[in-house]
């Protein structure tokens, strides 16, 4: 067996280096794509988890306040907490978003697309004696905070300090409600553990100082709890959590730090879905290329296999030899693919860091992930080679002789269109009938993709005749009689043609899908972001702004209208009875429409009527994500937990809102004041009057009020551009995959036509001998290729659009994001043109080969 493998398989691989490399390229592509995506997903999860852990460190449980009135936990709660015998330490903290007077932070816009705030400067007021029990501080310079409870000391993160030219001993101004206050930097900590908070724009000051300067005397934001060693197991932790919750009451939610990880998973869900789909596609494309390459190999070695069968090699031995070749290619290709995948993951991770505004993101590489990717790579290669191996086994010994009998088409080629229709029907039923729960639908969605491609592929052999007849006039017009001769050839090697057209179909589909997803996503996101970041300027502050700020802004020349916005985290009861958090966005219905507008999910909704209901109170606009996920509609009610108890709000309308991943509702300002005891704005949207520029008015506000009211002003257009640029960069990764898929299709065309030319050498010699010119011979091959490109392009277009709709539907099913499908017109035209151009370019080499056929050699060719 070993000797046979060496002589037959290894030597054959060495003698066909290009073909061998082509096969390996397929598996490299598949494994690299899969591994890159898995590593990126792991890295993202790890990075975001670390951000959460940075602030919770050694904490077992966290006690917070429902926070609907902005008052925080009363300090006396500490005594009640420490009564629980399981508790070793209960560490208080006050957590404030403010600003250091070192300049306007870059990412001041709390877009919260991933659900947490970034930007600004984060201050923790802590008890320096007890806080290190729950958070890790690594002092790199100076000292930690002293025991002076009212001291004006601050400890910063060394990276942030270095960027802002701050050092131990220097005095900085911290912006408080009473204006800037001076603090002395007594120490610097490393950017790890607690130092990772807010990407290092973080500092700690004494708790009492914080309470005093931010008017929060007697209040806390959070109590971190460390349990005694006997109580840290999962079961006991759950028991203590329940005990504590019942002890403290519903106003003081007790959460474990594990729930932070769940939140990270939820955040990444939508991101992961898209990536995993592309990972699957990479494997599919890679597997397809392997199948294509092995099929070509079998065709090329038909005579050799026939000879070997004549000499006594059994069918099984032939199959084994082909699969051994697949195994060898799979192992080699998977290893190289793994290396390439790690490299790709590095680039993707860099992009991730950029998206999340993190200084550095380190790759999370796990041996298990690498090993499983390698195994999958080898398995896919062998599976992809199964059908060609079986076909090789079926080669008759007669092939070894000069007699080539009429090669009967297999059943799959003759009748496979029936099976193809069955596959398409099943896919259609899964899509339309939709009888399964969401998670099953998602798994079936993946199967639907495969069924669709297989179904479409099986239809090709039966339909090529029709295609040829339909396109006859066009081919004749383009390429004349020689072209018609060539286009008829497409019906001859149906298996080969099918493989090639299918490869082109997949390539074009991927272009349509990536552009379709991008345009659809961008369409909704742009619409939403233009409305959310409405008006022309966005004004924010380190602390909530009173109504006088609004009046002052309105008085600025050039300002036409101002509307406030505030977000609060509130608890709500889901339709299935669970209590979860979402964001309540308070809007002033008197001024909101003067600056911006809502984007209603349903274009048929009576906007005025909906707005009127919202204004009347006890009503909400909910996001389309919530509507999709929980099956809510206008007219239903939604229960929120308020300071006045649990209240039902009527859903006045469903709007597009991606804030906090779509877990957001919008209610009117009066309700916010009445039920959540909050009346201060977190931001103001400013609309400018005609004739006034953003820069001019921005400067005016800056000069007049920025320092006094601690305001940050940003132009909305620049913020929108920033977000859209980031998204474009993310999607460009998918475009690369589409291009690679199309290249695979192009390679398929080259293969097919080369084999066709080789097999028809005698025929070409005969045609040349009766007067076909070299140019006409070239044209004959080009015409055959053009028809392949046309069929592949049109089929790719159809499936691409269909699959885009499937993917968007799947995303909605899984995450609740409802994205409206936008037909990528540019990609549609480009896709077909590319298929046609690629098919012609790929045909150049085989066409030239055909035109150079030596007549006498060809006629004597066996």
């Amino acid at each position, binding site marked *: 067996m070993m000797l046979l493998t060496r002589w037959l398989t290894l030597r054959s691989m060495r003698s066909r280096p290009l073909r061998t490399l082509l096969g390996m390229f397929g598996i490299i592509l598949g494994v690299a794509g899969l591994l890159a995506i898995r590593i990126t997903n792991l890295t993202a999860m790890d990075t975001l988890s670390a951000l959460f852990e940075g602030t919770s460190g050694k904490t077992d449980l966290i006690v917070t306040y429902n926070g609907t009135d902005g008052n925080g936990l009363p300090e006396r709660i500490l005594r009640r907490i420490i009564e629980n015998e399981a508790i070793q330490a209960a560490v208080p903290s006050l957590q404030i978003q403010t600003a250091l007077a070192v300049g306007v932070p870059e990412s001041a816009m709390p877009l919260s697309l991933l659900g947490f705030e970034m930007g600004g400067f984060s201050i923790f007021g802590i008890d320096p004696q007890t806080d290190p029990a729950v958070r890790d501080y690594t002092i790199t310079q100076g000292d930690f905070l002293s025991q002076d409870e009212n001291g004006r000391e601050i400890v910063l993160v060394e990276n942030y300090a270095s960027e802002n030219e701050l050092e131990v001993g220097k005095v900085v101004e911290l912006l408080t409600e009473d204006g800037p206050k001076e603090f002395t930097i007594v120490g610097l900590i490393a950017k790890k553990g607690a130092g990772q908070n807010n990407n290092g724009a973080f500092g700690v000051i004494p708790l009492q100082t914080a309470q005093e300067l931010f008017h929060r005397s007697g209040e806390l934001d959070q109590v971190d709890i460390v349990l005694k060693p006997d109580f840290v197991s999962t079961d006991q932790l759950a028991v203590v959590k329940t005990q504590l919750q019942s002890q403290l009451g519903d106003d003081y939610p007790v959460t474990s730090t594990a729930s932070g990880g769940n939140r990270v998973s939820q955040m990444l869900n939508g991101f992961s879905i898209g990536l995993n789909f592309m990972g699957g596609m990479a494997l599919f494309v890679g597997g397809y290329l392997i199948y294509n390459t092995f099929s070509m190999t079998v065709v090329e070695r038909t005579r050799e296999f026939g*000879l070997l069968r004549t000499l*006594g090699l059994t069918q099984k031995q032939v199959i084994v030899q082909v699969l051994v070749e697949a195994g060898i290619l799979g192992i080699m290709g998977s290893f190289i693919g793994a290396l390439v995948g790690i490299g790709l993951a590095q680039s993707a991770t860099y992009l991730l860091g950029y998206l999340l505004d993190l200084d550095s993101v380190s790759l999370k590489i796990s041996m298990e992930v690498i090993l499983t990717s390698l195994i999958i790579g080898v398995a896919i290669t062998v599976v992809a080679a199964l059908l060609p191996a079986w076909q090789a086994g079926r080669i008759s010994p007669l092939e070894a*002789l000069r007699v080539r009998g009429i090669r009967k088409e297999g059943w799959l080629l003759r009748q496979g269109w029936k099976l193809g229709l069955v596959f398409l029907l099943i896919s259609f039923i899964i899509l339309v009938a939709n009888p399964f729960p969401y998670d099953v639908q998602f798994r079936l969605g993946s199967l639907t993709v495969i069924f669709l491609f297989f179904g479409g592929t099986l239809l090709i052999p039966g339909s090529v005749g029709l295609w040829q007849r339909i396109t006859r006039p066009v081919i004749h017009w383009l390429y004349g009689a020689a072209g018609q001769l060539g286009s008829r050839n497409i019906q001859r090697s149906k298996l080969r043609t099918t493989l090639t057209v299918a490869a082109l179909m997949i390539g074009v589909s991927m272009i349509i899908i990536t552009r379709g997803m991008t345009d659809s996503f961008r369409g909704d996101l742009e619409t939403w972001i233009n409305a959310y970041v409405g008006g022309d300027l966005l004004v924010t502050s380190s602390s909530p702004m009173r109504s006088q700020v609004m009046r002052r802004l309105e008085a600025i020349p050039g300002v036409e209208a101002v509307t406030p916005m505030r977000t609060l985290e509130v608890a709500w009861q889901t339709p299935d009875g669970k209590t979860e958090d979402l964001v309540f966005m308070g809007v002033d219905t008197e001024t909101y429409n003067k600056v911006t507008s809502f984007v209603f999910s349903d274009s048929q909704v009576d906007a005025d009527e909906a707005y009127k209901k919202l204004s009347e109170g006890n009503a909400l606009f909910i996001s389309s994500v919530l509507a999709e996920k929980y099956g809510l509609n206008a007219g239903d009610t939604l229960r929120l937990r308020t300071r006045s108890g649990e209240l039902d709000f009527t859903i006045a309308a469903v709007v597009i809102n991606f804030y906090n991943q779509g877990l957001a509702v919008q209610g009117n300002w009066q309700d916010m004041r009445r039920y959540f005891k909050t009346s201060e704005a977190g931001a103001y949207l400013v609309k400018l009057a005609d004739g006034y520029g953003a820069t001019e008015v921005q400067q005016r506000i800056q000069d007049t009020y920025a320092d006094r009211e601690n305001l940050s002003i940003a132009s909305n257009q620049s913020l929108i551009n920033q977000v859209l640029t980031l998204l474009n960069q993310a999607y460009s990764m998918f475009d690369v995959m589409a291009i690679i898929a199309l290249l695979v299709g192009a390679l398929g065309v080259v293969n097919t036509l080369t084999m066709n030319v080789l097999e028809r050498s005698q025929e070409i010699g005969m045609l040349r001998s009766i007067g076909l010119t070299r140019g006409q011979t070239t044209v004959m091959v080009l015409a055959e290729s053009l028809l392949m490109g046309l069929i592949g392009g049109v089929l790719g277009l159809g499936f691409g659009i269909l699959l885009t709709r499937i993917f968007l539907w799947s995303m909605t099913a899984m995450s609740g994001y409802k994205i409206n499908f936008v037909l990528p017109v540019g990609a549609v035209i480009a896709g077909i043109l590319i298929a046609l151009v690629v098919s012609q370019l790929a045909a150049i080499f085989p066409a030239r080969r055909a035109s150079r056929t030596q007549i006498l050699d060809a006629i004597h060719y066996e």
Partner: protein
Amino acid sequence: MTKVVLEAKGLQKKYQMGEVVVEALSGLDFQVNKGEFIAIMGPSGSGKSTLLHLLGGLDTPSDGEITLAGQQLSILNDKQITLVRRHNIGFVFQFFNLLPTLTAEENIALPLVIDGRNLQEYQARIDRLLELVGLSDRRQHKPDQLSGGEQQRVALARALVTEPAIILADEPTGNLDSKTGTAIMNLLKRSCVELDQALVAVTHDARAATYADRVVFLQDGNIVREIRFLEGQEMSDRLNMVIKVFEELEAMG
């Protein structure tokens, strides 16, 4: 006592060519004894290649029975027929059909490797065959480094390496010049005589046919004539006999 190596009775083969059924063989009987050299001749379409394919188990008859080395081929499945072919038949093709990636020696040894045998045990046999065909000093050359005649000699050695019951040759000199062809036919004859090898060769070359012990003439799927040469008979006589039969058959139309 002569031993029958291969026997065919009532052999029929029909092909479906579109809507037309072509009868390539019409109920033919055929027998080959050990050490016997039989040439099969006939015009194109006479069924001689079809007969060779059926005898070699490369194709299945529409009717009739073939017995090779005591085994009835019709009751065997594909794997069993393959094994029969592996152990009992050596093939020589018109276009040599050597593997381009193997050396001359490796091409010769290939059937043994396919059968899973330890090559070291058969090295002496391989060396003998290389000597028989006069290629001992070319054993490491690949096919593209050998002439047509040399390649055919390698193919002959390959056919002999398993010491098969019968060699089937399909136009063995069809791709060679007359001098080289003569050399090949001499070798084939030698293998019959020295190794007591049964040999059936399809040929359209009258001169090649004169090396055989008997010549069988096919026409329209039937054996229409048979010539048995005498031992020691001059080649020119044999050639005249063959040509005469051809003329007679042509005259019959």
